C-alpha cells in the first residue's frame, strides 16, 4: 500500500474574485502500516488536505496516487472518519457498519457476519439494534471507525476524530485506536491540533504551517508503546512540537 500526495495545492475563490490559497505544494507519502499525524495551527487546511486525499475534493493542482493510480473520486479503498461521526441516524448500529459492504454488493448474511465481528472488535456487542443517538459520543465514534473498517480500506484518514469528545473519553479512545492499530496494522493518516494526542499515537508527526498550509517539519516519535504521557521523553516531544507550532503561529 502506498498513498502519495503529489504537489497538492488548493485555492478558494476569495473576496473580490482573488483566489485565496489554502494549501501550497504538499508532498507526502504514507508508508504502509504506519501511523502518521498531521498537526498544524487551526485553519491551516488540514481538513481540506484530508478531503483531497479521500477524493472528495479535487485539488487546484497536484494529484493523489493510491498504489500508483490517481484518485479522482471517493473510493472505499480510502476510508475517512469524521470529527462529527457522520453516522446515519436512520440506520441501526449494525446497519451503519454494514453500509460499505452493502455498497459493494456483499450478500446480507455475509455482511452481517463481518459487521458482528467488527462490533466485537470495537467493544460494541449488544448494541446492534440501537440507533446512533442512543449511544454515547465515544461509542458513536467507535461505530464510525467500525463502519470505515468494514469497507476494507487500504488507508484510513481520520479528521480530528476525537476532537468533539471530553478529555477522558478522548484518552480512552486513543488507547482503543492504538489497540486497533496494533491488532490490524492499518495505515492511518490522522489529523489533530492536540499535541498530546499526536505524540501519544503517532510514529510520525507532520507539522503544517499557517494558511496556506505547507509542510514545515517532520517529527519521528521513537517511543515504545504504551507511552507514558507524563514521562520526560514524552514531554520533550511535546515541547518540540509546541515550539514549532508557536513559531508557525508567530509567522
Amino acid at each position: 500500500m502506498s498513498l502519495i500526495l503529489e504537489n497538492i495545492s488548493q485555492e478558494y475563490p476569495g473576496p473580490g474574485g482573488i483566489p485565496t490559497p489554502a494549501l501550497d505544494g504538499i508532498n507526502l507519502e504514507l508508508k504502509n502500516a504506519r501511523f502518521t499525524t498531521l498537526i498544524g495551527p487551526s485553519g491551516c487546511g488540514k481538513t481540506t488536505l484530508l478531503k483531497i486525499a479521500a477524493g472528495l475534493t479535487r485539488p487546484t493542482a497536484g494529484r493523489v496516487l493510491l498504489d500508483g493510480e490517481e484518485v479522482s473520486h471517493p473510493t472505499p479503498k480510502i476510508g475517512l472518519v469524521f470529527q462529527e461521526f457522520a453516522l446515519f441516524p436512520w440506520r441501526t448500529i449494525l446497519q451503519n457498519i454494514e453500509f460499505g459492504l452493502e455498497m459493494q454488493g456483499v450478500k446480507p448474511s455475509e455482511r452481517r457476519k463481518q459487521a458482528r465481528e467488527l462490533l466485537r472488535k470495537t467493544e460494541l456487542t449488544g448494541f446492534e439494534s440501537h440507533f446512533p443517538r442512543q449511544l454515547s459520543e465515544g461509542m458513536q465514534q467507535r461505530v464510525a471507525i467500525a463502519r470505515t473498517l468494514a469497507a476494507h480500506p487500504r488507508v484510513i484518514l481520520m479528521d480530528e476524530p476525537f476532537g468533539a469528545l471530553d478529555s477522558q473519553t478522548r484518552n480512552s479512545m486513543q488507547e482503543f485506536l492504538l489497540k486497533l492499530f496494533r491488532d490490524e496494522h492499518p495505515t492511518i493518516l490522522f489529523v489533530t491540533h492536540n499535541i498530546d494526542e499526536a505524540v501519544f499515537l503517532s510514529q510520525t508527526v507532520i507539522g503544517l504551517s499557517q494558511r496556506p498550509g505547507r509542510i514545515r517539519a517532520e517529527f519521528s516519535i521513537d517511543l515504545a508503546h504504551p507511552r507514558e504521557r507524563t514521562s520526560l521523553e514524552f514531554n520533550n516531544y511535546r515541547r518540540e512540537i509546541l515550539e514549532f507550532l508557536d513559531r508557525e503561529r508567530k509567522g
Partner: protein
Amino acid sequence: MKKNDNNSTSRFLPLLIILLLWELGADLSLFSPEIFPPPSRVLKTALELLVQGLPPGHGLHLHALYSLLRVSLGFAIALSLALPLGFLAGWSPRFNRALNPIVNLIRPIPPLAWIPVAVIWFGIGLKSSSFLIALGIFFPVLLNTISGVREVNPVYLDAARTLGAGEFHLITKVLIPASLPMVLTGIRVGLGVGWMTLVAAELTGVRSGYGLGFMIMTARDLGRVDAILAGMAVIGLVGFLMDRGILFLERKTLTTS
C-alpha cells in the same frame, strides 16, 4: 397509565365545556334549534343520515367514502409528481433554478381559483375534483421535499461516498431516508390543504351524487342546518384522523432519525 388518562381528559375538557354550553343554550331557547341546532341534535341527525341518507338512500358513510376516494386519487397524483420533482430539484441546483419561477408563479393561485377551468377542462366529476385536490396537495409536498433534500447534512453524503456509494445509492440510501421526516411534514400539510380543497370542489357539484360537500349543499337547499352541521362534523373528524395518521408516521420516522 393513570397520569396519561388524566392528561387526555384535561385535553378534551375545554371542548366538552363548549359543547355543553352550546347544548345548554339550545335548551334555554337562547337560539332557535332550527338555525343553530344543539350537538345532541346534530349527533342524532348524523346517525339518521347513516341509515336514511340525504338525498334518501345516499348514506353519510357513502358520502364520506366518495370524498375519501377523491382525496386518495388526488393525493396519489400529487405525490407521484411532487416527490420525484422535489427530489430532483433538491438534488440539482440547476433544475431547481429552472423550476423556481414556474412554481412561484402558480403557487399563489389558490386551488379554488382553479375550479372554473377545472370544470371546463375535465367536466364535473371525479376528474376535476381530483385535479383540484392534487393541486392543493402538490405544492406543500414539493416545497418540503426540496428543502428536505437540500438540508440533508452534506457530511452524510461525504461519508456514503467514501464508503463506496454511487449516485444511485446516494439518492436511495442517503438522500431519501435523510429527508423523510421533512417530506412527511409536507405530506401532512398537503393532505390538510387537499381535504379542504375537496369539500370546496364538491360544493360546486358532483356527478355521482355522493360526497360530503355535495351532501352539505343538498342540506342547504332543504334548509336542514342539522344535516349541514353533521356533514361539517364528519369533515372535521375525517381530516383530524388523517392528520393523526400521518403524524404517527412522522413520529415513527423521527424516533429513528
